C-alpha cells in the first residue's frame, strides 16, 4: 500500500472502516518499520573501509607538520 492509499483510509470515517481496512493500516506501518530497520542495517554494512587520512592529505598536497618545539614562557 502506498502513502496516498494510507492517507485515504485515514481520512475515512472510522465507523466505515472494514476489518481489512484496519489490517491494511497496521500492515502499512509494520512494513514501513521493517523497511526502516532494513535501511539502517544496510547503512551500517555499507559504511565502507576506513579512510587513510595521511594518504589523502599527501595526495592533495597537504603535508602534516611535526609538532614544533614547545613555547617557553618568558617572564
Amino acid at each position: 500500500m502506498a502513502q496516498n492509499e494510507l492517507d485515504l483510509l485515514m481520512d475515512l470515517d472510522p465507523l466505515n472502516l472494514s476489518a481489512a481496512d484496519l489490517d491494511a493500516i497496521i500492515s502499512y506501518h509494520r512494513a514501513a518499520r521493517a523497511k526502516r530497520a532494513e535501511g539502517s542495517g544496510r547503512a551500517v554494512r555499507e559504511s565502507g573501509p576506513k579512510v587513510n587520512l595521511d594518504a589523502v592529505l599527501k595526495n592533495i598536497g597537504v603535508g602534516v607538520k611535526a609538532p614544533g618545539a614547545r613555547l617557553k614562557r618568558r617572564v
Partner: protein
Amino acid sequence: MPIQIMNIHTQAQSPFLPGTAIQFAWDSTSLGLLKTCPRLYQYTMIEGWGAEGESIHLRFGIEYHQALQDYDLSRAAGIPHDDSVHDTLRALLERTWDAETGTPWTVDPDTKAGRYKNRHSLVRTVLDYLDHFRDDPAQTYIMKNGKPAVELSFRFELEWGPRQEPIVIDDDPACRVLTPAPAQPYLLCGHLDRVVSFSDDLYVMDRKTTTSTVSPHWFSQWNPSNQMTLYTLASQVILESPIKGVIIDAAQILADSNRFVRGFTYRTPDALHEWMEGLHHWLRLAETYATEGSWPMNDTACDKFGGCRFREVCSKSPQVREQFLKSDFVKLPESERWNPLKPR
C-alpha cells in the same frame, strides 16, 4: 503516617477551600507548578490562565495513554496481541474523528509540535509501542479484588489540613487563642497508568512521549522527581504492598519513526518519608501565599522545560502584565481549568 483512601466522587468539586485561594486537593501537576514557581502556580491554578486552543501535546498524550490502557485491559482479559491491537487502534481512530464535522483530528503541520505529533504519528506510535513490548516481562498486576491495576485513580487524606483562622475569645480573662482542628484535611490525588510485576517486584509504570532525545540525561530528570515520588507513595497506599519505584517507558517521537527506551527510578522508604516532610513545608507555604494574596516569582526557573509559557508576561513591568496576560492567554472557565479532583 495515617492515611485513608477515599471513595472517588463522580463530579469534580473545587480543589480550593470555599471562598479562598487555599488549595486542599493536590496532585503532582499542581504541586509541581508551586514548586517550580509560585507565580506560575498563581497564573495557572489560582487565576486559570491558559493557552487559547487545544494543546497538541496534551491531546496526543491523552490519546496515547488511553490507547495503551485499552490494550492493557484487553490483554488482561486474555485477548491475544493482534486482536487487542486491532481493537485498540479502531477505538483510537474513532476517538480522533469528529463525527459532527466528519473530519479527523488535525494539527498545524507547520509547527514543530504538529510535525511530530499528529494523527498519523499517533497511530504509528501506539502500534510501534505495542509491537515493541509484545512479549514484555513486565506484566499487569492483578489486584486483590481481581481487577487489573490499570489507570488507577487515587485520592487519599493526609493527617493534617490547611490551618484555620485562630479564634480569639475576648471575654476570657486570659484572652485565650484557640486554633480549631482543621475541618478539611489535605488530599493527595492523581492517576497511575499501570502497576506491573517485574522480576518479582512491583512497580508503577508510567509512559511518556517526547520529541527530545531519550538519553541517560533525559532519564535523570525523574530522580528526584515530585511526580515519580508521589506515584510510588500513592501506589503503596492503594495496593498496600511495597512498590520499588517507577518504570518509565519513553517514546521518542521522530518525524517518521519512534524510539522506545525503558528506564527505572527507585524510591526507598526514607526517600518517601523525606518527601512527605517536604510536602508539609510546601503546603504551609502555599497557605501563606494564599492568605497574603501574593505568589512570588521564581526568576531562576523561567528557562526550565524549554521556557515558561508566562516568561514574556513576567518580563513586562508589573503595571502592564495583566494586559499582556489578556492578549496572550484566555481565562479558562472553571470546568476547563486544571483540577486534581476531576475524575477521568
